[in-house]
């Protein structure tokens, strides 16, 4: 069932489509018309496209906060998704879900806001698939920081013990919300996955062809009843944990953010109470985090999965794909924004207003 022949044109089409929808929503967020939080999957397109290209409509995908791209990749109507994220009751989930809890049962895809729950949900889907629809698989997307969540580790074990058709995708962007993951993680994640008895593959998540090949091997294996897989892929989150991430603000507008944070940190460091070594360790911790962020955003920021995809198809094909996608996604966001109407603020609409 796997489509192991890699089709770079299709990969680039998917990735472009995802990026355009994400960008449209990020812009809308900054324009103040997306209520609440928004976690974009910009930077993860190579991973998402490389994996989804192997899936059929009945395979299940269990998603995290960065769910817009996978849902678009699964075929959800962009305008319907945008309306939901913009807070309209005409959205795909009738305004009940919003960005963090999007559900698309028609393509067996859904996002849960509880970190790590994609693991056990995929295990459950796999049990159901084994009983009702042999050959179908379940894919759980999660971050490297989620590897410290008990229920995810428990689901690794259940999947391995019961040889379930599950693929766990660990998207490693090195950051756990605003905490550097390695500072709160023991051991090595790939070795940890092997220790659970999962079949392991690794790939550079910015290279869609590499991801596609590695995922294909694990998915074929799982479909054949040979047990679950774990795909470790590296990536970067240029937008930070979510839009408005203070770390990104610090990197983009250091002077402004220093003005906001500076006085409090200074007060703390100069307070009479607390030992000198405590104060030094505290300030050093903040400095180290800033330095790590600056390094990651500089080095990793240069690796854009779409640039890689563009090289795979060539400029002429890429331009044609981009133009077609831009027209469609541009129309979708224009329609969605028109449906919402001018909204400078949220949370303040009187009952009945949209």
């Amino acid at each position, binding site marked *: 069932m796997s489509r192991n022949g890699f089709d770079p044109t299709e990969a680039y089409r998917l990735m472009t489509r995802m990026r355009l929808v994400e960008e449209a929503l990020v812009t809308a967020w900054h324009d103040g018309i997306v209520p609440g939080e928004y976690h974009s999957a910009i930077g993860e397109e190579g991973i998402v496209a490389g994996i989804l290209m192997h899936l059929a409509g009945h395979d299940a995908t269990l998603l995290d906060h960065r769910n817009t791209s996978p849902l678009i990749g699964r075929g959800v109507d962009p305008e319907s998704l945008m309306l939901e994220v913009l807070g309209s009751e005409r959205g795909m989930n009738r305004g009940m879900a919003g960005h963090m809890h999007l559900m698309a049962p028609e393509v067996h895809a859904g996002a849960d806001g509880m970190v790590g729950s994609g693991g056990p949900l995929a295990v459950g889907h796999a049990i159901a698939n084994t009983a009702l629809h042999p050959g179908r698989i379940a894919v759980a997307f999660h971050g490297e920081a989620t590897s410290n969540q008990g229920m995810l580790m428990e689901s690794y074990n259940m999947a391995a013990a019961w040889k379930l058709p599950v693929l766990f995708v660990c998207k490693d962007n090195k950051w756990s919300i605003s905490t550097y993951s390695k500072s709160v993680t023991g051991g090595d994640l790939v070795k940890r996955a092997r220790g659970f008895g999962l079949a392991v593959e690794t790939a550079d998540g910015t290279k869609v062809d590499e991801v596609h090949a590695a995922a294909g091997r694990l998915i074929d294996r799982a479909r054949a009843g040979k047990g679950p897989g774990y795909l470790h892929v590296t990536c970067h989150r240029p937008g930070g944990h979510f839009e*408005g991430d203070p770390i990104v603000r610090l990197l983009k507008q250091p002077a402004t953010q220093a003005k906001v944070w500076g006085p409090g940190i200074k007060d703390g460091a100069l307070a009479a109470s607390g030992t000198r070594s405590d104060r030094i360790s505290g300030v050093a911790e903040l400095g180290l985090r800033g330095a790590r962020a600056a390094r990651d955003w500089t080095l990793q920021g240069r690796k854009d999965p779409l640039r890689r995809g563009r090289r795979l198809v060539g400029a002429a094909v890429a331009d044609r794909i981009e133009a077609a996608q831009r027209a469609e996604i541009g129309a979708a966001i224009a329609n969605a924004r028109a449906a919402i109407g001018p909204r400078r603020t949220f949370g303040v*609409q009187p009952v009945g207003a949209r």
Partner: protein
Amino acid sequence: MSAIPTARHARPATATPTSAPTPTATPTAVRTEPMTTTTNRTETRHADTNTPDPNTPNTDTTNASTPNSSAARRTGGDEAESRGTRRMNYGEAIDYALGIAMAKDERVVTWGEDVQLTHRDLLARFGNERVRDTPISESAFLYAGIGAAMGGLRPVVEFIMIDFATVGWAGIVNAASKFKDFSGGRWEVPMVIRAGCGGWYSDGGQHEQTFWGQLAAYPNINVVCPSTPADAAGLMLAAVESDEVVVFLEHQLLSEQMLDFLGGDSRPTVDFSAIRPAAGASGPVPTALTPIPLGTAALRREGCDITLVSLGVGVHRCLEAADTLAADGIEAGVLDLRSVSPLDSAAILEQAAITGRVVVADEDYLGGGLTGEIAALLLESGLGIRYARVAVEQTIPFAPHLEYAALPNAERITTAARSLL
């Protein structure tokens, strides 16, 4: 249940079925603490209050409606420092109290997701062992808090949102709640669980719950949710000093924490001022801070016709409703519970006896919660109180207009109040 030595919600001895409703206002034992505010409802609210608040700050409109401008916040705080108070934002006041507690007692430590960044002032002051970032391991770092408390520390374990604490619920309901009794009262768990709660800013059904009714059901668990910066600071100090587990809920609409990510410095296109109660977001905090005893309600507004009862943001919604009712000549009192457990039953009954009518506005689910608990309290009192409640009756929707309608807004409270008149 009665065998549990520390059972909550003990009825006061005076609340016997023979007590009759008192038609006129009686001298009250409830703390009368009108909210200091810069909004336009001050005059009506203070009209019949005999103890004007000595802490009323100088005029300060710089930061009341903009949670996110931290620079403005700090400037405002310095300017408003007078008569033993300093103007602080809600979250800032909590950290102020925690800082005092940590300076006083080095057994007080805090950990949770991202606390080093969100409480960077405390990190810079107390270092990375007393202010510790955790992995995303809610069940383990909560249970570890219980272990640390049993081992002699006084941990303040933080969850960004109480919704996330549900991942570690066993620690609260099976361990923190039980160990004191299992050990025959010899092993205390002096832990604070600090967590964001509540909505009104479109964070969806998994990020805006309060759970305070459910949490209050368990033995040995205290639950508080302040409605002002002063209360936030005083209750945090009491929570850290308590030898029991205290769930300290930090309302996300009043706290600058989440809103700072979602508006203001992050995106100036968003302004929360129309939905965000100014008097709860920013206000005077006593610099010589004293703990506010857990389980003491505060009367925010006196009124002889009906009593509106709530906590957190609900208090401000009740004050809005009281203004609306006052325009029609209906005098509504507003009682801020501050604690769900222990519940200040005496204060509720006292106000109920004065007005004979009670509306509870609860930003928690309708079923099995605070509104039912207070209904039972009133019924058991035999006072013959007329009662109505406004609470959350569905999954909290994401879309702003749907969310507003689902939460206990002032319009719903006003309608419920009128139904009793």
